[in-house]
């Protein structure tokens, strides 16, 4: 996790809020550093994490996690982390007929399927175990990323349904958190993606939006992060609080600064 980002969000692993949906989105840049942040944050907060990793392999997250101070292999072994590796599962599903339903069953289906098997998997992974073992604080679902599901043929409505079910179970029933990443296609007309993004934006409590700079590539400032706190259930009489920072990604951390205050400029 990035200490500077914790300061900006005003949280620490010990006293993070529960029952929240956090939406990460990136436009014209790569927002995966936010996924690494939240993964290491919740592992350090001693939460039970279910990570649906659809776009990269386990060792990718593991190697970056080690730079951020968490060991994913050990977390998986002691049961703190349930890791669904999308790429490996896709190969298994595609080449061999599966006997029992697989979370990513929709890959085999000819028509646009639904994500019910995936939801069952998540619910099974995060349900509280009564055996009295090492108590994890609260469950967390992390998905990287939802746009992959759209590109594999699922409709935006199916994905929104999945998130709705997950929120009902993880956020409301189990008092945990859900963090998802969606790519913003920007000026490209991607209707399904826009529906998904808008739908999730209205349901989220916290939106972190990583954007590339409008003026193009810069070596010292990699992008801009917009943070938006929302209260989706309450009336909109209160204005949502929003902050914007610029950031630079380094080997083991990300540094944030106010717009125009990059150390390279001052």
């Amino acid at each position, binding site marked *: 996790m990035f200490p500077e980002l914790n300061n900006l969000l005003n949280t620490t692993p010990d006293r993070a809020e529960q029952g929240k949906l956090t939406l990460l989105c990136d436009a014209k840049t*790569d927002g*995966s*550093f936010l996924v*690494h942040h939240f993964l290491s944050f919740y592992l350090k907060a001693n939460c039970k994490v279910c990570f649906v990793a659809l*776009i*990269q*392999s*386990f*060792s*990718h997250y593991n*190697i*970056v996690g080690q*730079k951020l101070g968490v060991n994913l292999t050990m977390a998986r072994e002691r049961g703190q982390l349930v890791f669904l590796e*999308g*790429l*490996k*599962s*896709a*190969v298994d599903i*595609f*080449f061999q*007929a599966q006997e029992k339903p697989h979370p990513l069953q929709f*890959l*085999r*289906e*000819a*028509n646009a399927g639904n994500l019910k098997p995936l939801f069952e998997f998540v619910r099974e992974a995060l349900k509280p175990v009564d055996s009295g073992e090492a108590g994890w604080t609260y469950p967390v679902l992390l998905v990287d990323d939802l*746009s*992959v599901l*759209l*590109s*594999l*043929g699922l409709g935006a409505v199916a994905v929104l349904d999945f998130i709705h079910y997950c929120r009902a179970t993880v956020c409301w029933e189990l008092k945990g958190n859900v963090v998802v990443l969606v*790519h913003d*296609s920007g000026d*490209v*007309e*991607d*209707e*399904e*993606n826009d529906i998904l993004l808008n739908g999730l934006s209205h349901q989220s409590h916290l939106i972190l939006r990583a954007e590339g700079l409008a003026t*193009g*590539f810069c*070596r010292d400032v990699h992008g801009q992060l917009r943070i938006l706190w929302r209260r989706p259930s309450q009336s909109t009489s209160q204005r949502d609080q929003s902050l914007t920072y610029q950031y630079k*990604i*380094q*080997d*083991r951390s*990300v540094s944030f600064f106010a717009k125009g205050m990059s150390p390279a400029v001052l």
Partner: protein
Amino acid sequence: MAAVATCGGDAGSAGSAVATGSKSNVTSFQRRGPRASGTNDSGPRLVSITGTRPSVRNGQLLVSTGLPALDQLLGGGLAVGTVLLIEEDKYNIYSSLLFKYFLAEGIVNGHTLLVASANEDPANILQELPAPLLDDNCKKEFDEDVYNHKTPESNIKMKIAWRYQLLPKMEQIGPVSSSRFGHYYDASKRIPQELIEASKWHGFFLPEKISSTLKVEPCSLTHGYIKLLQFIQNIIYEEGFDGSNPQKKQKNILRIGIQNLGSPLWGDDICCTENGDSSHSLTKFLYVLRGLLRTSLSVCIITMPTHLIQNKAVIAHITNLSDIVVGLESFIGSERETNPLYKDYHGLIHIRQIPRLNNLVCDESDVKDLGFKLKRKLFTIELESGFASFHSAHF
């Protein structure tokens, strides 16, 4: 293998070349990438596969694309287990040339090749590969070729400091020996037949493979894509590139080249209509391919006619599912051909995406305006500059 013998390089010399070039800490020798499952990725192992080297930044295993200029822009080379997507130029001239450089590099290094095409027989593609510049007696020709472009004044001997005229006038580049990482090719000559015969390659020519019946249940992929994925998976498993076959433990790289993916010849209608029946066929194919590559010692190059794809949102999906995306834009037939600003170049090369593998940062190069030009023995990529090129670096 005979191919390796003619190169004069072997695992030992490649390893020693790495040893002298890398940093002093031990970690740069380790291959920490997510490749080659079946082996525990806990302990560091010394990698000794020909034609590969660990990345200076994070020890990831890299192979050359066949174009040292492009290797430099991609942070040293192409990471094993990744996909390089080339967005074809309009007439598919330079993209097919990059495709051939990639395959030729595989032959020179002794890698196994897998060539897939829907319109050209892979055997013919291999016949047309450019000849590698391997021997030192080619160096003289090479120098002449470059100097021909210089003005006559540069050939006048320096009168003041006579000692200096013996030094090369520019950076010493060009083919030195064949055990280096990345080679140069003569685009006007064909690769020697004996090199092709000595190499190991598998061809997938769609019209030949499509006639057999389909055994797997349909999952909304085009028939051609299903066959290709099965073919690739079969080769990876049979020859042990993923480490799962107990008999064969490969210590070699599989170079996969897929030509014109997404074109109507593959049975895909993504270039014909905006919302066709098989609109997600290509993205599913790329996803399963990514899964195959991440768990094996292979590397893939795909050329795709993205300028023909009707639905622009699909291009965004395809970009997200590929690791490196390079776009080529040639000036042939466009107004830029006669534009004085671009007269030195044959086209523009756009690096659209570079992966962040096992890392928070990526090797993004500072410069984004890059032009390329093809000379007989050299494919150069330079900073675009209408005036004298201050930073031109001939690779």
